[in-house]
């Protein structure tokens, strides 16, 4: 056993990594096509392969020469650090030349361009590692560069395109589009010239009165600047609220909707969270499955169900009450649909908060003589407050960004997310769409920043200390029964709504003829089925890269030190805060022409899914990696495994459960996505959700219901399969997976 082994010294032997990457890049550029005709990425274009281009294009000769030099560098006997520096510069030169070639040729990129980009980035990464610039190995350094390039190309670049389109009209830098939108009554109008009252004055007066009242009350208790601040905050708040309430337009509708939905959904979520953690009643067992349901169903289902139950010929409004009312078409219907859809999100956030509260604190309060009501008010509520703010902001982002419900039950009332759509589809005005997009983006992004950096910090302050293992106190019985009652009402509503869609899909003509029929299901053939399978196929294609990319980013962010790490993390999580419609128009604006032409391909749909759902993978990846003791990876490294081997043999097997649920949820989210892909679909690649929308728009509610039911049942089956495979799966990890 005591045989002495020599220490491996940095050998001056050939560097295989560089030779392989240099060789692959060389072969790819010489033999694959740099351009493509039309939408098919893999169509061979004669005359566009590197070998043929060498004579006419000096840049192409340069690219080939750089790749050849990389092979040479790998083969030469040189110290690793020197070799690394050379590789770094060669890789950078290769990237620059490739980009220059693509931009100057102006043709849509072909497979050779992909190989060149990835290859030269990998050479740069290897160079970074070998030269010691980054203290990681070639694999991780390459991963960092690749991931960074993806985030730049498919998240930041589209957003940049939206920003640019909002201030560049017909090639000229101009604020015309911005001012015309901001001044338009469809965006926001406070003082309605048709009404006799002066809305602006009323709002200002209300604000002033509030400020005065608050200021006086505060001054009576406390002196000084705090009273002034409270008065200012209250005054401005009431002024803004009053202006919104009295005003008109998409901004007003979206913001008011977000506030109302945020408050109600958060309140419901808090009640449900208390129930699930503290209730003595049986009803709490229903919370898990019912909280998942709205998350995994396509966004139109609830809207459709509202039409069935409360529409003009709705089962409740018309069938039971004999009304013929359109009151549910508009903000009320949208609000109800959103509350039903987003209360579970608030619940999942707040469940964690309620659970993390240390029961010992409540016991301490109780031994000090506090009643249960008192504890709720003085201990639970203050501790839950940051979590409640968090839930509210998350729901508000979702509500602002929501596209499906406003378009189906909005009744033509303008909302920001739908105006983006109508500006581009109805009014063919990309600049106007971009301005709406920027406004929406500014709002969701600032909420996202507040949630992440302000509330997020406070969150951790409250949930510190060791859990004591003490049992949670049950709710006071009166509260328990009241909360359970609210929950039961919610359950009945959800069951009725989903049930109506299922029944609607086998009913002849809802509201007129309730005879059972299979005609809608039969009518799905062939279009409906075809669209369904296309959606499933593309979602499956997208789920794998979004999980792998997400996991890799999660790993890099938690375990590797490199410059630009926080920028990478922020950039990759950004797509969660960006409303789908904004990302959608970003994609058409960014990938509509020139070298990056992608619109009309199925690839752009897959890319949209991948980068939209990557944060799910990042979240679940980070959660899983944090569970793995770092010394396991160090032990593997010490035993001479390199980082890809450690990832494959140690990290991935231990994170299997998280990877699998990340995969399934990336798939589910892709299947149910609407807003980010509605601009990107073509007749050849229609998707199930947009197909439901067009069925509903053309009046065939039955077929819409049939496809929606099919989709819902399929999603439930997928989730149940996940349950079966992954026994460690529970609703909580799902919630964490889905939350920002």
């Amino acid at each position, binding site marked *: 056993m005591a045989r002495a*082994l020599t*220490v491996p010294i940095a050998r001056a032997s050939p560097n295989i990594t560089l030779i392989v990457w240099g060789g692959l890049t060389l072969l790819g550029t010489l033999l694959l096509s740099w351009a493509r005709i039309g939408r098919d990425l893999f169509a061979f274009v004669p005359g566009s392969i590197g070998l043929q281009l060498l004579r006419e294009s000096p840049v192409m000769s340069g690219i080939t020469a750089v790749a050849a030099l990389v092979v040479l560098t790998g083969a030469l006997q040189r110290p690793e650090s020197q070799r690394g520096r050379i590789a770094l510069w060669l890789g950078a030169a290769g990237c620059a030349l490739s980009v220059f070639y693509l931009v100057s040729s102006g043709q849509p990129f072909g497979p050779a361009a992909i190989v060149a980009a990835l290859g030269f980035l990998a050479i740069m990464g290897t160079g970074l590692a070998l030269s010691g610039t980054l203290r990681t190995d070639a694999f991780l350094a390459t991963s960092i560069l690749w991931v960074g390039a993806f985030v730049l190309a498919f998240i930041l670049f589209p957003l940049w395109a939206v920003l640019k389109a909002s201030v560049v009209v017909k090639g000229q830098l101009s604020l015309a589009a911005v001012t015309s939108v901001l001044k338009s009554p469809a965006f926001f109008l406070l003082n309605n010239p048709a009404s006799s009252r002066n809305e602006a004055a009323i709002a200002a007066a209300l604000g002033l009165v509030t400020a005065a009242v608050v200021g006086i009350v505060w001054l009576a208790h406390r002196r000084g600047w705090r009273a002034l601040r409270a008065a200012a905050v209250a005054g401005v708040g009431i002024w803004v609220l009053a202006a919104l309430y009295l005003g008109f337009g998409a901004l007003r509708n979206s913001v008011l909707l977000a506030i109302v939905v945020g408050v109600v959904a958060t309140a419901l979520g808090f009640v449900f969270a208390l129930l699930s953690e503290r209730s003595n009643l049986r009803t709490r067992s229903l919370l898990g499955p019912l909280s998942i349901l709205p998350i995994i169903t396509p966004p139109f289902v609830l809207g459709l169900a509202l039409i069935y139950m409360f529409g003009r010929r709705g089962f409740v409004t018309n069938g039971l009450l004999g009304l013929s009312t359109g009151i549910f078409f508009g903000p009320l219907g949208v609000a109800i649909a959103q509350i039903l859809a987003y209360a579970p999100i608030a619940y999942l956030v707040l469940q964690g908060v309620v659970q993390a509260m240390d029961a010992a604190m409540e016991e301490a309060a109780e031994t000090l003589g506090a009643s249960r009501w008192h504890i709720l008010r003085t201990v639970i509520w203050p501790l839950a407050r940051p979590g409640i703010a968090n839930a509210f902001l998350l729901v508000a982002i979702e509500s602002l960004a929501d596209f499906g419900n406003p378009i189906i039950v909005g009744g033509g009332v303008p909302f920001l997310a739908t105006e983006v759509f109508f500006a581009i589809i109805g009014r063919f005005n990309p600049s106007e769409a971009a301005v709406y997009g920027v406004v929406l983006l500014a709002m969701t992004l600032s909420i996202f920043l507040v949630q992440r950096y302000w509330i997020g910090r406070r969150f951790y302050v409250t949930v510190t200390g060791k859990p004591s293992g003490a049992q949670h106190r049950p709710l006071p019985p009166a509260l328990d029964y009241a909360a359970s009652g609210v929950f039961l009402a919610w359950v009945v509503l959800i069951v009725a709504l989903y049930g109506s869609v299922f029944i609607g899909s086998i009913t002849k003509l809802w509201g007129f003829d309730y005879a059972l029929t299979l005609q809608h299901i039969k009518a799905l053939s062939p279009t409906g089925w075809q669209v369904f399978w296309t959606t499933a196929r593309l979602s499956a294609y997208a789920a794998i890269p979004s999980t792998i990319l997400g996991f890799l980013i999660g790993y890099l962010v938690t375990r590797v030190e490199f410059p630009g790490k926080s920028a990478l993390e922020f950039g990759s999580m950004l797509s969660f805060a960006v409303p789908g419609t904004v990302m959608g128009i970003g994609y058409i604006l960014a990938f509509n022409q020139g070298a990056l032409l992608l619109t009309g391909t199925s690839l752009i749909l897959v890319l949209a899914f991948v980068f939209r759902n990557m944060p799910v993978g990042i979240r679940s990846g980070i959660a899983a990696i944090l569970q793995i003791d770092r010394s396991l990876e*160090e032990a593997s490294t010490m*035993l*001479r495994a390199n980082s890809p081997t450690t990832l494959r043999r140690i990290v991935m097997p231990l994170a299997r459960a998280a990877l699998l649920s990340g995969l399934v949820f990336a798939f589910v989210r892709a299947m149910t996505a609407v807003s980010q892909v509605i601009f990107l679909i073509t007749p050849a690649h229609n998707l199930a959700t947009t197909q439901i929308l067009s069925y509903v728009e053309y009046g065939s509610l039955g077929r819409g219901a049939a496809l929606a039911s099919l989709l819902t049942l399929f999603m439930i089956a997928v989730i149940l399969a996940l349950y079966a495979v992954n026994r460690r799966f529970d609703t909580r990890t799902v919630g964490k997976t889905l939350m920002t």
Partner: protein
Amino acid sequence: MNAQPHVRLRNVTKRFGSAIAVNDVSFDVAQSSFTTLLGPSGCGKTTILRMVAGFYRPDAGDIFLRDVRVTDIPPHRRNTAMVFQEYALFPHMNVAENVGYGLRMRRVPSPEAGPRIAQVLELVGLSGHELKFPHQLSGGQQQRVALARALVVEPEVLLLDEPLSNLDAKLRVRVRTEIRQLQQQLRKTALYVTHDQEEALAISDRIAVMDRGRILQSGTPLEIYHRPANRFVADFVGLANFVDARVVAAGRVEARGVTLAITDGAPSGPVTLLLRPEAIRLHRQPPAHAANVLGGRIAAASFLGTLARYWVDVNGMRWTIDVPSPGDQLLSGEVFVEIPPDRIHILKE
């Protein structure tokens, strides 16, 4: 032992942000020796170990394995192996797979790997447990698997990061004896990190006592215990009574008006005397023909089985004094305290 040190650190400094974890440390680990880094938490001992392993790169200075500079070599290219505090056994692999992992990474063919795994498991006394998973093993067994996993790859240097801290007291003593025996049997160079001074004394050939990123003293356990370089080392290793005194003449010190004979030499001036609790003797009657006898009064006593520990007020000071194999009755009241001159150590600071 080989004359050339096996591991050498030269002026190594490591910072984390603005905090200096290791401050200009130079020290050697001799070939086939068992060397321990001992110190309170946060003293930089684990940082040194992880720099030798390659997980951290020193901000300044160099690390050598024999005469090869390894400062820039990543962990998986150094021929070191580490036993982690939490063992870091791969939970999804059984014992044989855990132990065989390093061989697999070195592309050792399985006909060769199998016997080597069996051999090392026998060495740590775990034959027959090959197919068990880590969670099916006791803490001591997990510890041995971790040791076997590190040994099977025949590392040049074995690194151990507080490997016993998760075991209960009795098991800790047993496993540390086993680790020591294995190390001597295999003649492996071992670098060990602990904050437990008793463990360090029991297991090591050499100990380096650290505080605030520096090595305060390096020596054999006996040297460290009996000839501590300063007050911190004396206090951290074992129990100590410190007495402020002045050297008044060759072989004589004065402390609080009492003159004591010493054998330790020191230039005249103020000094600190170190009296280990077991170096002081207690008598009911004044002993005949003894130097340095003082009167004292027992303030408190505590029975510890193999010894009795007394807190005795002597000349306005309270000393801790250990008396081995106490009889049926503990001492109390007025006593006589004898300090043999050769057991008084002068701390030179």
